[in-house]
């Protein structure tokens, strides 16, 4: 049998190294084919910002830009944790109140017992981990559907918060470090330094990877594309740091207010860390596998139960971090911390970003982008002087708008048969 390929366009197991041109062309036809990555969420975000800026020009100010980060931080952090549970096709309805329980522990340890901030934070995160372990155990080992387990958690944790808060009183957070998470700023110079380090780190990783692949003769993106990527990151980070370093105080005489809020690098570190875990470690790979096809994962010898439990542990642990952020933002913990719409906003953030509720699909950056959408909506709505009723309606419609942009831009994916 002759096996010579008749034409060189004939596909082969390893395609030839792409050029810049072919890379751009490829990207473009991927986009036209509906494979858009983060593009739709970013698009939705831009549309939302444009709308709000038109209606209330103050939306587009340095001051408000900084607000966006601090206001969206708690929901974003909780959403990051939820991504892990959603990746497995499970749900955690209790994440909101779990963050409340952990915040209550934090407040009790830090304010009532008066212990140092790190003890309080560790106690809170430890509580979160414990909660996650119990939830995960009930789901993976006992076999109760996660919806029911976490619904029970949703109810029970409300009660726990109430008991921890002595049936309803509020506790103030006085500790300087804890308060600083959401209220402190990083001096402009250090902000620039962090920015530079981040770009340098990214560049190093990308270039090393490029060299490694080329040396092994594997397909690698052209160097020009790699450099372009680094440049884009540098640009985006640079602009963000520049804007956050501008004076935004209402009255600069009373107090100077510039520099990025401390919570920004906190979120960035969490994002990088969890992205690393999901994309570059065995554990992350197994998480995707269990979410994509649990039976296949089991047959491949992956300890499915342990993976499932761990996802709940991470989710509740991140909820604890979210609770700490929320406590820092409010400088106080009350029985409603983590309640009202926190959970739905967090799950919504993950889903808007592109995480699937059926498992197997999602990234941590989704949670951040979706969290940004939610933050923009809440922030923008706060600038509009609507009555409660109208506000709810407009919020719903705006959310739909953001998701609609996403859905419509993804529709081609379905039309061209991509699954």
């Amino acid at each position: 049998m002759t096996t010579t390929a008749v034409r060189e366009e004939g596909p082969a197991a390893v395609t030839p190294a792409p050029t810049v041109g072919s890379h751009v062309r490829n990207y473009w036809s991927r986009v036209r084919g509906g494979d858009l990555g983060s593009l739709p969420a970013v698009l939705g975000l831009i549309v939302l910002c444009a709308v709000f800026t038109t209606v209330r020009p103050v939306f587009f100010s340095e001051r408000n830009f900084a607000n966006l980060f601090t206001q969206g931080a708690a929901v974003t952090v909780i959403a990051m944790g939820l991504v892990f549970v959603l990746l497995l096709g499970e749900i955690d309805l209790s994440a909101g109140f779990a963050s409340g329980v952990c915040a209550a522990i934090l407040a009790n340890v830090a304010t009532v017992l008066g212990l140092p901030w790190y003890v309080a934070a560790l106690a809170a995160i430890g509580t979160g981990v414990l909660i996650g372990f119990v939830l995960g155990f009930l789901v993976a080992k006992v076999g109760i559907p996660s919806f029911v387990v976490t619904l029970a958690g949703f109810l029970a944790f409300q009660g726990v918060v109430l008991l921890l808060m002595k049936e309803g009183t509020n506790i103030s957070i006085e500790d300087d470090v804890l308060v600083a998470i959401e209220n402190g700023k990083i001096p402009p110079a250090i902000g620039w330094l962090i920015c530079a380090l981040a770009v340098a780190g990214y560049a190093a990783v990308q270039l090393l990877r490029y060299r490694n692949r080329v040396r092994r003769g594997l397909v690698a993106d052209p160097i020009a594309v790699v450099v372009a990527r680094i440049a884009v990151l540098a640009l985006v980070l640079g602009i963000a740091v520049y804007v956050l370093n501008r004076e935004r105080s209402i009255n600069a005489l009373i107090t100077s207010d510039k520099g990025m809020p401390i919570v920004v690098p906190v979120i960035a570190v969490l994002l990088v860390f969890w992205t690393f875990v999901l994309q570059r470690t065995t554990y992350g790979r197994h998480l995707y596998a269990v979410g994509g096809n649990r039976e296949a994962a089991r047959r491949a010898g992956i300890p499915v139960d342990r993976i499932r439990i761990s996802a709940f542990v991470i989710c509740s642990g991140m909820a604890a971090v979210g609770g700490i952020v929320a406590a820092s933002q409010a400088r106080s913990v009350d029985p409603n911390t983590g309640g009202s719409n926190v959970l739905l906003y967090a799950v919504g953030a993950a889903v808007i970003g592109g995480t699937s509720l059926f498992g197997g699909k999602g990234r941590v950056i989704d949670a951040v982008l979706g969290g940004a959408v939610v933050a923009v909506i809440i922030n923008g709505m706060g600038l509009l002087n609507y009555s409660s009723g109208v506000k709810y309606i407009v919020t719903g419609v705006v959310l739909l708008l953001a998701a609609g942009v996403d859905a419509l831009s993804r529709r081609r994916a379905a039309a061209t048969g991509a699954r």
Partner: protein
Amino acid sequence: GNDSGDKGGDSKKTPKIGVILPDSKSSPRWETADRKYLEAAFKAAGVQYDIQNANNDKTQFTTIADQMITNGVTALMIVNLDSGTGKAVLDKAKSQGVATIDYDRLTLGGSAQYYVSFDNVQVGKLQGEGLVKCLTDQGIKNPVVAELNGSPTDNNATLFKQGYDSVLQPKFDAKEYVKGPDQSIPDWDPATAGTTFEQMMTQTGGKINGVLAANDSLGNAAISILKKNKLNGKVPVTGQDAGAQGLQNVLAGDQCMTVYKAIKLEADAAADLAISLAKGEKKDTGQTVKDPEGNRDVPSVLLTPKAITKENVKDVVADGYVTKEELCKGSFAELCTKAGIS
């Protein structure tokens, strides 16, 4: 196998009182104060009682009422979640021969024998007056006043607003004050209040000179944003409930006033009426409130709320509503001494 006739007979002999509290999140008072004082009063009188909390859930509210009637209470005291459910419960109780009291909230069109409460409109008035006083003390001309109202679904929030608007609106009309942003906070949620207030500041370019916050939790949310902008103490904030956190804010000068409702008095009055009703006796309150919907005069006990500023924080401690240990923790010890709390 208990015959229903027997049960009816039994219940007439043993007085038993059922109390339904509304929730535990809109204010700490229900679980921390009301329950405690009511229990104490019932115990002292030696009557059986059953105190339940509906957790802000109407289904639970009606369920609990059903269950209490099932359990054979002879007097039922409710804090309604809304007038409709309240009325249904009261009517059902009445049809079963159970005596009823409206506690803290009047059920419009209802059939309760008594109404015991603080005057909620009066609470609002005190808040409005307190804010005006603080603004005057600080000497701010033409202040912009922002309002953080309570939950849009809570009727009491509407009453509070009625009260403080009756003070503020004339000032707005007279162009003495400037009306700033005015928003309701669903579920009385402090986190929402924080974001809402931050956006109010953004929207007005920080030009807010006074905050009428409907309770201490909302007030604390506003104060945390003011602290962020180092404006705490410069912008007066109101509140109500006189809990530890609120009083601390008042002592620190971040909050200009709060409203103290001597819940013990209210609870004692209600318990007193309930005990006599449960025993089948009648009492004269000497006071009535007009129910506009039911068009009847409800015999009432109305208590007066009290405005609390730095000067009289000690009264609340003296009442035992907040303990000194709770209030004067850490950095507040000094402020407590200054305010004469010992």
